[in-house]
C-alpha cells in the first residue's frame, strides 16, 4: 500500500529539542506517526510531549526499537548525525537538513554504499504515506491516501503537485522528497524502482529540476519498460546557465543539465511531460483516465 514508511514505522528524531525539530515532531505525532524516541546529546532522560529523549542514537534504538531516524541537526554536524544513525544500523534515515557540504555527503554515501541502509535526503521534505505516517516536514492536510506515487527533488513542489492532485480527488500512495543537493542518498531512479515494485502505486508523478542527470537516469529506466504511467515536470526551464538556483544541485553545467534536455529524455522514454507546473494535477487526471485507472 506504500513504500518506505507506514503506520508501523517507529521513528526516532535526531535534534528533537531544536526549534524546528520540536515543532515538526509535534506535527508528525499529530499526523499519527509513531514517534518513539528523540536524541539530543546531553539531554537524555528528558521528554518532549511524552517522547523519551536519549543522549545517543544507539541508546535510543536499544530502548525503543526505532527503525527510522528523522534528522534535524544543523548542517555542520549533520553528516556526523547520519553516520551515527547508520552506525546504530537504523535501516531508514531521513535527513531534512539543508546546506551540508557536498564532500561530507560523499563520505557518507561511500560508507552507506554496501550497508543496506537507505538514506533519504539531505535537503529534503522527507517521506509521507498519506493517512499513515509523515516522516518529514510536509503540511499533512494537503495529502490524501490513494494510488499515485510522487517523487520530487524539491520540497515545496511536492506540496504544489500534491495539492493539485488532492483537489481533483486523486490520492497518493507515498510521496518522496529526495532532496535538492547534488549528492543525495536515494536518487529519483532509486525511488522510481521502489514505486515500480509497489503493487498499490498505479502511476508516478516525477518532479525533476535543472542540474545533474537524475532525470536522464529515470528516463532510461522508464524506457526499459516500466509498465506504469509517469507524469513528469522539470523545473528551471527559465534558469540561466552557470547560476545556482538555490539548491546546490540546481545549476546548469552543460547541455544535459538543462530542463529542455531532461524533458526531451523523459518524453522520448514515454513519460508524459508537463510544461506548466500549474498543469500537473490536470495532466495526471487525464493520463489516469486514458489508461482506465480511474
Amino acid at each position, binding site marked *: 500500500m506504500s513504500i518506505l514508511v507506514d503506520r508501523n514505522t517507529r521513528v526516532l528524531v535526531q535534534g528533537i529539542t531544536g526549534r524546528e525539530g520540536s515543532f515538526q515532531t509535534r506535527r508528525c505525532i499529530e499526523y499519527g506517526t509513531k514517534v518513539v524516541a528523540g536524541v539530543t546529546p546531553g539531554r537524555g532522560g528528558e521528554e518532549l510531549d511524552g517522547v523519551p529523549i536519549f543522549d545517543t542514537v544507539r541508546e535510543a534504538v536499544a530502548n525503543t526499537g526505532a527503525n527510522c531516524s528523522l534528522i534535524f541537526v544543523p548542517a555542520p554536524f549533520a553528516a556526523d548525525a547520519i553516520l551515527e544513525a547508520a552506525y546504530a544500523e537504523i535501516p531508514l534515515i531521513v535527513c531534512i537538513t539543508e546546506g551540508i557540504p557536498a564532500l561530507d555527503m560523499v563520505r557518507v554515501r561511500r560508507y552507506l554504499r554496501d550497508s543496506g541502509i537507505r538514506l533519504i535526503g539531505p535537503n529534503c521534505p522527507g517521506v509521507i504515506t498519506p493517512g499513515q505516517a509523515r516522516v518529514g*516536514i510536509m503540511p499533512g492536510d494537503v495529502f490524501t491516501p490513494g494510488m499515485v506515487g510522487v517523487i520530487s527533488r524539491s520540497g515545496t513542489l511536492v506540496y504544489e503537485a500534491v495539492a493539485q492532485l488532492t483537489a481533483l480527488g486523486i490520492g497518493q500512495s507515498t510521496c518522496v522528497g529526495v532532496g535538492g543537493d547534488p549528492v543525495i542518498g536515494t536518487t529519483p531512479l532509486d525511488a522510481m524502482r521502489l514505486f515500480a515494485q509497489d503493487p498499490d502505486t498505479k502511476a508516478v508523478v516525477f518532479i525533476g529540476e535543472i542540474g545533474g542527470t537524475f532525470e536522464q537516469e529515470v528516463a532510461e529506466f522508464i524506457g526499459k519498460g516500466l509498465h506504469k504511467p509517469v507524469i513528469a515536470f522539470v523545473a528551471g526551464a527559465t534558469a540561466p546557465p552557470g547560476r545556482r538556483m538555490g539548491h546546490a544541485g540546481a545549476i546548469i553545467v552543460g547541455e544535459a543539465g538543462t530542463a529542455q534536455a531532461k524533458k526531451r529524455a523523459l518524453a522520448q522514454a514515454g513519460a508524459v511531460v508537463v510544461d506548466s507546473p500549474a498543469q500537473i494535477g490536470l495532466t495526471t487526471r487525464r493520463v489516469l483516465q486514458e489508461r482506465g485507472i480511474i
Partner: protein
Amino acid sequence: MKVHEFQAKELLQKYGVPVPRGQVAESPEEVEAIARQLGRPVVVKAQIHAGGRGKAGGIRLASTPEEAREAAGQILGRRLVTHQTGPEGKLVRRLLVEEALQVQQELYVAVILDNAQAMPLIMVSDAGGIDIEEVAATSPERIHRLVVDPAIGFQPFMGRYLASKLGLRGETVKEAVQAMAGLYRLFVEKDCSLVEVNPWVITTDGRLLAADAKVNFDDNALFRHPDVAALRDPAEEDPLEVEAQSLGISNYVRLSGNIGCVVNGAGLAMATMDAIKMAGGEPANFLDIGTVNNVERVVNSFRILTSDERVKAILINIFGGMARVDVIAEGIVRAFKELEVRVPVVVRLAGTNLAEGERILSQSGLPIIRAGDLGEAAFKAVAAAQGERTPS
C-alpha cells in the same frame, strides 16, 4: 563561490602545482614594472569572473615592458563583454601579468564531483585550450575520466593511468602525477566544487604549467574555510545580490525580466519562474526565501525587489511546509508599512497555518491581489506587470 584566476593560481602553487611566473597589478605602471622584472615577453590578463576573455580582447601579448604598459592602459577600467558576462559586461579592475609561454602542447585537467557516483572525478584531455564542453561534443574520445574513491583518496597509480592516456613520456609523467595529486588535495581540503586547469601547458623547454586555472568552492562549506571566504570579490557580483546577501537572503539571483518573485523553496521558485514565462511574462529574479520563520526576512525580500527599478509587479508564492504562512503574511503587512511599495503585489498562499495567514491579509485592508493557485498567480502577475487590472 568563484575566485579570480590569480587567486586560483596562488592556491595551486600552495598545493605544489606549478604555474607561470607572474604577479597581479592594478595600474599600467605596476604592469610595466612586473614585465621588466620578468625580463621577457609577457601576457597581460584581465581578472574578471567570466570565461571568454581572450576573444573579448581581455588577454594581450606584449614583447616589451612598454607594450605591456600600453596594453594594460587599454584593458584596465574597460567593461569586458564575453559570452558569460551578459551584455553589460564586467569592469576590469586588475590584471595578471605573467611570463609568456613557448607552448609545445596544450592539455586539460580538472577535478569535479561526479554526482551520479557521488565521488570526486579527475578528468583529463589532450585537447587543451578549448572549452571542454566543446571537446565533449565534438571528440568525446579525447576525454579520459577516473573516479577517486574517497575511502583511499588519490593514489599515484591513478595519476600514472591518466598521464598514459595523455600520451605523456619521461619526466613529464612524474610532474603530471604530482600536479594531479596537488589538485585533488586542494579539491578535498578546501571543499571545492571545481578545480580546472585549461590549458595545462607543456612548454618547449619541457615544463608542465597551469596556464589558466579556475577554482570554484562549495558555498555550503565556506563556514569552515574563512581563508576561502575572504577571497570573495563582491565587486564581481550584482550589487543587488550583494545587498540581498547582507540582508540574510542568500538565494537571490537577479534576472532580466520585470516580475519580482518571492517564493519558498528553490524548486517552487524555479517553477514559479517557469509559470510566469508560460503566462507570457519574464521573471526579474529567482528568490528562495527559505524556511526560516522570520518576519524580517520577508520585509527584506520586499526591500530588495522594490529597489530593483526593473520590477513592475511582485509575485509572492508561498506553500508552507516548514515555513509558516502566517509569518509570511505578517511580513507582507510589515513591508507595506515600512517600505514604499509602488508596484502591484500578487499573493498566493497555501500550506501550514494558512487560515491564520489569510486572516492577517484580509484584516490588513491592503491593496493585495489574491490568487488561489499557481496558474492564477502567474497570470495575474503578468497582467499586473503590463498595467492591466484583474479582479482580486
